[in-house]
C-alpha cells in the first residue's frame, strides 16, 4: 500500500493500476444518504482492480471496508490524500476546499449526477431574495469550475447528459479535441445512473410493521423513502392519504427520514408544512407517521420490505426534469410497486414498464386512485412486482459503474487541457466581483474550522504566493 503523502509520477505513463481517490462532501457513517452511497459504491467497484481511498471532507464514523481505506481529511491531510492519487473522483465542492487540484495535472473525474444549481431554485427559497440569488450564482460558479477543469464527467441519465453538454459547450469544452468530429460525447461525459445493490435485500427485523406505534402487522403501508425537500410535494400525498383513509381505514403512510444525516443539509419548509397539514387533518399517528431521524443505510431494507408501495411526489418544475430520484432505486431494489409524479426520469416510464403508476403533479384525486390500485388491487400489484424484477436488472451497481471502471482502466487528461493553453479557453461567467474583505474573512473562518491554524497558515501562504506570481 502506498504511504500517505508519496506523490506518484504524473507526467509520462501512469502506473498500470492507477491510484484512485474518491472524495465526497457527505459524512461517512452507517447513515449514508444519496451522494455518500454513490461514493461508497464507486469505491467498492473500483477497489476490485485499483488501490482506492475513500475520503469524506465532512467526517467519518464507524465505517470500514476490507479493500480500501476510509479517511476524514481536510487541510494538509486532504492535500496529502490528493497528492497520493493519480485519479481523483469527486462530487460537490472539492475544488473550493482543495483549490490546488485545479492547477495540478491530476486526472479529475467530476461526478455531476446532481445539478445542484437547479436544486437551489427551490431549496434556496428559504434564504430570502438575496440569499437565493447568491446561492444560485455561487453554485453555478462552482459547477462551471468543475466542468472547465474535469478530464471526464459522470452524470445520471442521458437527459442530464444533454443538459451538461450545453453547459460544457459555453465553457468551450465541446470541441474536436474532447469529443472528436464524430461527436463521441461519452469520451467527455458519460452516464452512470444511481445503482442498485447487487445483493438482494434481506429483512433481519421489522422496521415498521408492528414496531411503529399505530401501524399494525396487516396494515397497507405506503413508504416515502428518503428526505423531504422543498422540490418534493408531500402535501398532495398527505391529502390523498386522508381521502383514501375514509374508504380504507388500514392505509398508513410512513416518512422514512425527516432529518438528513449531513448537518449541512438544512431543514426545509416543506417538511414542516407536511407535518402541519397531517396534524390539521388529524392523520398523525393514525394514518401518517414521521420518522424524525434517518434510517441507517444497511437497515433500510428492514423498512422498505415492510411496505406495500413506494411513493415519490414532486412539483412540476425544471429541477424535476433533470433529477434522478435515488429513492426510486430503493423501491426497485426491494420490488415495491411505485406511485410517482410524472415529469422526471422515472415518473414517465412507470406505466410504460408496468412497474407502477405515474400521476400528474399536484393531482390529489389521481394520486389517490393510483395508490388505491397499487395497494388494494392484488392482480395489478402482482403484475407490477413481476415487471420490477425484470426492469431493475439494468441498474445494478456492477452494470451502472462500467463507464467509470473503463475510464479508470485507462485514465487520461482531457486532450483540450493538454493541447490548448488555459488562457484560450472560454471563461466561466464571474457572477460576483472580486472577493470582498468580508469574503476573505469568511474563507479565514472556514479554514480555521476545517483545519485549524495550520490550514489558515497554508492558505495565507498560498494567497501571498498567488498574488506575488501575478505581480500584485
Amino acid at each position, binding site marked *: 500500500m502506498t504511504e500517505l503523502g508519496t506523490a506518484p509520477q504524473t507526467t509520462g505513463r501512469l502506473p498500470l493500476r492507477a491510484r484512485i481517490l474518491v472524495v465526497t462532501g457527505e459524512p461517512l457513517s452507517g447513515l449514508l444518504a444519496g451522494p455518500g452511497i454513490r461514493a461508497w459504491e464507486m469505491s467498492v467497484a473500483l477497489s476490485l482492480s485499483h488501490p482506492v481511498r475513500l475520503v469524506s471532507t465532512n467526517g467519518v464514523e464507524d465505517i470500514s471496508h476490507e479493500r480500501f481505506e476510509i479517511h476524514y481529511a481536510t487541510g494538509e491531510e486532504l492535500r496529502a490524500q490528493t497528492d497520493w492519487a493519480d485519479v481523483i473522483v469527486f462530487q460537490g465542492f472539492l475544488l473550493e476546499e482543495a483549490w490546488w487540484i485545479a492547477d495540478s495535472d491530476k486526472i479529475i473525474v467530476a461526478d455531476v449526477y446532481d445539478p445542484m444549481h437547479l436544486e437551489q*431554485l427551490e431549496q434556496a427559497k428559504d434564504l430570502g431574495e438575496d440569499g437565493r440569488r447568491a446561492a444560485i*450564482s455561487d453554485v453555478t460558479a462552482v459547477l462551471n469550475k468543475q466542468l472547465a477543469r474535469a478530464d471526464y464527467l459522470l452524470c445520471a441519465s442521458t437527459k442530464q447528459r*444533454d443538459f451538461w453538454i450545453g453547459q460544457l*459547450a459555453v465553457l468551450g469544452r*465541446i470541441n474536436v479535441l474532447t469529443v472528436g468530429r464524430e461527436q463521441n460525447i461519452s469520451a467527455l461525459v458519460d452516464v452512470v445512473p444511481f445503482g442498485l445493490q447487487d445483493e438482494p435485500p434481506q429483512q433481519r427485523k421489522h422496521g415498521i410493521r408492528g414496531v411503529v406505534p399505530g401501524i399494525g402487522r396487516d396494515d397497507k403501508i405506503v413508504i416515502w423513502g428518503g428526505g423531504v425537500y422543498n422540490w418534493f410535494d408531500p402535501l398532495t400525498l398527505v391529502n390523498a392519504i386522508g381521502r383514501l383513509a375514509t374508504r380504507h381505514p388500514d392505509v398508513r403512510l410512513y416518512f422514512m427520514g425527516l432529518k438528513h444525516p449531513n448537518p449541512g443539509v438544512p431543514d426545509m419548509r416543506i417538511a414542516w408544512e407536511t407535518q402541519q397539514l397531517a396534524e390539521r387533518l388529524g392523520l398523525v399517528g393514525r394514518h401518517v407517521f414521521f420518522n424524525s431521524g434517518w434510517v441507517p443505510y444497511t437497515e433500510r431494507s428492514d423498512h422498505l420490505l415492510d411496505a406495500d408501495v413506494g411513493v415519490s411526489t414532486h412539483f412540476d*418544475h425544471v429541477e424535476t426534469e433533470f433529477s434522478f430520484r435515488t429513492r426510486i432505486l430503493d423501491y426497485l431494489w426491494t420490488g415495491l410497486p411505485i406511485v410517482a409524479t410524472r415529469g422526471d426520469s422515472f415518473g414517465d416510464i412507470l406505466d410504460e414498464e408496468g412497474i407502477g403508476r405515474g400521476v400528474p403533479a399536484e393531482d390529489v384525486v389521481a394520486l389517490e386512485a393510483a395508490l388505491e390500485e397499487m395497494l388494494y388491487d392484488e392482480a395489478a400489484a402482482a403484475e407490477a412486482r413481476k415487471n420490477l424484477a425484470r426492469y431493475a436488472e439494468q441498474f445494478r451497481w456492477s452494470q451502472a459503474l462500467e463507464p467509470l471502471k473503463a475510464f479508470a482502466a485507462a485514465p487520461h487528461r482531457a486532450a483540450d487541457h493538454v493541447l490548448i493553453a488555459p488562457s484560450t479557453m*472560454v471563461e466561466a461567467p464571474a457572477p460576483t466581483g472580486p472577493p470582498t474583505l468580508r469574503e476573505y474573512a469568511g474563507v479565514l473562518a472556514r479554514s480555521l474550522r476545517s483545519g485549524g491554524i495550520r490550514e489558515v497558515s497554508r492558505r495565507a501562504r498560498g494567497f501571498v504566493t498567488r498574488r506575488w506570481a501575478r505581480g500584485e
Partner: protein
Amino acid sequence: MVSLMGRGVVVVTVTLAGATTTLSDALRLEAVSRIESGSTEAVCFTADGAGEWVLAAPCDVLLVAEAALSGIEPELITRISDGSGSTDPRTAMLELQWRLSLNGHRVLALDGPTTPRPVSTVVDEQRRVAAILTALAVLPGTQLYGPLTAAVQLYFDLDTIGQAPSLRESVQRRRRVPDRALTRLMEPAVAHLVGAEDRADRERLNASFDASGLRAVLTEPLHVVVVAPDTGPARVRAEQLIGQLDGMTVRLVTGGSGEILQGDTRLDCSLVEQPLWADVIVLVASTFDDVPGAARTDVPVVVDFSTIDVVAWLLEAPLSWHRSTALQELMTRADLVLASNDRQRDVLLGALAGQVRVNAAVYDEDPSLLSLVRTDESGIALADFCRRPVRAADTNLRPFVRPTKPGDLAMAMHYLREGGPAALAGRVAARVKRLHTSRAPRKTR
C-alpha cells in the same frame, strides 16, 4: 389585500381604498383560473370590460399573480389599498396596471362591478395633475416624452411637469417591453389617466394628440430585424417568419453578404444602425457577429437555433472561429431561445444555466422555463414573440448585495457593548466548546 393559493401560483387581490363593490365568487374564480393557467398575469374588472388586453382601465379590484408584483414598489400597492400618499388611489390603480404592462405582464379587462369615477373638470384638477405626472412616468420611451409633454401642456397648461423625471427614470429602468409594442393600447389608457372620461374631454385630448404629432407615434408599427444566413433551412425559416408578421415593419439582414432588405427593396443603410432601429431582433442560426451592436441594445432578442444541432455547429467550425464564445454571448443576452427538438432544448437549457440565466427571477415567473427556451417547429411561438416582444424576467434586476450572516466581528462588538469583556469571553468559550463537540465524533479509521 387577500392572497389566494392556487396550483403553484399565488394570486393577490388589490382592492381600491374605499371601494364598496363586492366581487362575486364566480368572477373571482374566473380571474384566478385565467391567471393560474398562465394566459394572463392580471385581471381587472371594469365597466364594459370585454376580455381585451388593456394598459390601464378604471377598476375597484385587480387580481394579479404575486410574481408579477416583484418589480413594483410595495408603496404603490399601499397607496391603492389605503389611499395614503399624494396620488389618489384610482390613479395609483391605473399606474399599477400600466407598470405591469411595461414590465412585460398582461392585464386583461373583464366586465365587472366598479364604482363610477367622479368626473369633475374643476374640483378634481389636483388629481388630474397627479395623473398626468403618472402618465409621464409610465409612458414608454424617450421619443414619446417630448410629444406627450407638448400634448398635456396644450391640454392643461401644466407647469409642474418637472416633478416626473426621477419616477420616470426608475420606471423606465425596470421596463421589459419596447415602446411600439404598447402604443396600440395607449390612447384609451392615457384618457383614463388624465380623467378624460366624457366625450368632450376625449375630443380635446384627441385634438391635442393630433396637434402635438403624438398620433403618428401611437400608430407606428413594430420594427423587427431578422438576421439569417444567405441560404439554407435557416433562411427559409426567416422568410416564413417574415410572411407571418403582417402589420409590422420587417427588415432582413443577411449574415453572409450583409444585405439589408425591407420587402423586396434593398436598403442603402448601415448594418450598425439596425439594432438602434429595431424593437425586436431575431437571430436565426446567426450570432452577434452578424449584427454588430445588437448585444448591447435594450430590445428583446430571440436566438432561433431551431435549424441547428448545437454540438455539430460547434464542431463544424475551426477552433479559431470561437463559436463557444459566440454561444456564450448569445446565451447571456437572449430573451428567448428556440431549439429544434427536446434534446436540443436540454442542451440549450444547460448552456443558459451555465450563464446563470436559469435563475430565481426567470424561474419564479415561469417554472416551466418555456418562456426562456422552447422548441418551436411551426414558428408560431417565434411569430407570437415578435408581436408581443418582452425582455427576459432577469433583465434589469436591481443590483444585489451579497447577504452575510452577522459577522463574527460584529457579534463580538455587540457582546462587548452588551456585557463587556467577560460576556465576550464567555461567548467565545461557548463557541470553542461547540466546535470541539461537533468535531469530536469524527475520526479517521
